[in-house]
């Protein structure tokens, strides 16, 4: 099958959906040239740097029958528009008793690794997961971003698509034929029997690499990528842990109150699964520090392969 990059796959999804539905509108400070060329200035709008205004305008557009896609770029920029996410987009469907639908896609780049420092590197998905009313996707491959993005654009709710900055250039197989990927389905990236590793975004690939290495140590990892954070496929995660009896969650976000805590809690609080646990669950996450600039410190802030392996080995003892 042909291979294209994560970024290209996202672009393709947009192109296809913008062709499919003329109610789609794109808002961003940097205009995507391919979309602009095909759909013109009116639908592919350049915005001033005023995120609150266009994150909010998307709500008004959606409530009036359009399907806006908004590219915020870095997730750190999203905070200047936070009220529009938390108090408006997330609550408006519920608060108005479901009178109108609000189909919106918000794209934001997460993660670290490029020495962009604290104000351009963050993985804040758990902050949004704590706000009911937002769907959240976190695609880890070109195939996934294309399929999930298309589903997001067709969904009738606000959806945040978090894209890891280090995956942009990653290549992967993407079919030429049309497809979508339903929300709320985790993918078992690799089957295994000893330890369930739930990994997010770029960490999916780290976990897969480690799984290869650990095979040599005789440890068999089952690697699960939730793909969608809200709605979350709890069943696949629980079923895997019920099978392996061991859980390691790997996430680059800061550990305290991150998604990894949620995964851990949802697994252990179910008596059935709790009883089957052979060792205590582990989290391997980003440290509780703002992302530092200098490469040695930045790397240290993120989960290393050694730390992940150590956690797996600990889970095995």
């Amino acid at each position, binding site marked *: 099958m042909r291979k294209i990059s994560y970024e290209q796959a996202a672009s393709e999804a947009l192109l296809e959906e913008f062709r499919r539905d003329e109610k789609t*509108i794109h808002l961003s400070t940097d205009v995507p040239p391919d979309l602009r060329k095909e759909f013109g200035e*009116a*639908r592919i*709008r350049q*915005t*001033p740097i*005023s995120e*609150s*205004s*266009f*994150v*909010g*305008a*998307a*709500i*008004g*557009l*959606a*409530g*009036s*029958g*359009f399907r*806006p896609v908004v590219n915020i770029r870095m997730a750190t920029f999203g905070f200047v528009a936070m*009220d*529009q996410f938390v*108090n*408006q987009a997330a609550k*408006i*469907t*519920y*608060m*108005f*008793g*479901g*009178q*109108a*639908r*609000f189909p919106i896609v918000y794209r934001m780049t997460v993660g670290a690794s490029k020495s962009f420092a604290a104000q351009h590197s963050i993985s804040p998905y758990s902050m949004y997961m704590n706000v*009911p*009313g937002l*769907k959240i996707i976190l695609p880890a491959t070109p195939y996934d971003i294309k399929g999930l993005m298309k589903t997001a654009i067709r969904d*009738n*709710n606000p959806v945040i698509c978090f894209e890891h900055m280090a995956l942009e250039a990653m290549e992967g197989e993407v079919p030429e034929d049309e497809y979508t990927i339903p929300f709320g389905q985790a993918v078992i990236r690799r089957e295994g029997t000893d330890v369930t590793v739930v990994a997010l975004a770029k960490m999916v690939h780290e976990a897969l690499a480690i799984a290869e290495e650990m095979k040599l140590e005789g440890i068999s990892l089952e690697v699960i990528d939730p793909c969608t954070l809200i709605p979350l496929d709890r069943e696949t995660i629980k079923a895997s842990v019920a099978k392996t009896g061991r859980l390691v969650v790997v996430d680059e976000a800061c550990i305290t109150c991150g998604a990894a805590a949620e995964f851990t809690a949802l697994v252990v609080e179910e008596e059935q699964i709790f009883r089957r646990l052979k060792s205590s669950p582990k989290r391997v996450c980003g440290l509780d520090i703002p992302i530092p600039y200098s490469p040695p410190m930045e790397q240290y802030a993120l989960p290393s392969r050694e730390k992940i392996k150590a956690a797996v080995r600990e889970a095995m003892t």
Partner: protein
Amino acid sequence: MKSRMENKREDLVHLYQVMLTIRRFEERVVIDYRSGAIPGIVHSYIGQEAVATGVCTNLRLDDRIVSNHRGHGHCIAKGADLNRMMAEIYGRKTGYCKGKGGSMHIADFSIGMLGANGIVAAGLPIAAGAALAAQLEGGDRVVVLFFGDGATNEGEFHEVLNLASIWKLPLIFACENNLYSVNTPVQYATGLEHVSERATGGYGIPGVIVDGNDVVAVYEATKKTVAEVRAGGGPVFLEFMTYRWRGHFEAPGIPDLRPAEELEAWKGKCPIAGLERILLENGIVSRQTLEEINVQVMQRIENAVSYAVESPFPAPEDALEGVFSS
């Protein structure tokens, strides 16, 4: 108040009816809030009736409005159903939002009322989006955005002035300058007497200052503006000078620190009494007709309260429904 005999009798009577409906509705809400029948917080629109009425009377059903925390008047003037409004305020299942929103979050998308908002200035970007939608649709719909003087201090206000201006959106900024945000005088908070200077200054949006207690003036100014905006003239800023008669909201806690004489003076400029005088002095209607209108209005409010009171509360588990649309 200007006596404009060029206004048709029916128009004037209609304005009177709408204002009186808002007044009586709000009076009843205050009473029922105090008695404990209404939960939460309510922000009374009493004193500002001429603004919502004069503005919305110029709108078509397919025009849209976006409102703020003090939104009952805007709803009523846009034609919302009193029963469903009251039921919502009472927290009943039959309310506009099935009891999920309450006083600060009433919406009726079917009549182009895109919702009140509990966060100061947060409705502004939403209105800009609705105006962009209207522009993309290619018709001549307009969007009216209601907000207070206090909202002009939030950054979003300026971001939206800018979007409206550079995109020439069919958006009417309807600012109700009631001289205070809670207890903060507009002159302290903005350094200005008229906040419309902010629109004309940095954004080239025409600003019009209107006596917000003169419903005919509000009506006429909006009429002209709506025609311009429909014709593609881009955004306009209407600043309505007015005053609220009650404290910031109906709830214990924050005292009303505004000068008592100021309040009394503004009560002397009651928008409803003003129109009443015109109607009577010019012999447009008789006192008896006004009485009849009052009775009708009271009856509708009474019905709304009965509807609310007789409606069931939502079941607790109803809370689980409707976080997402299908």
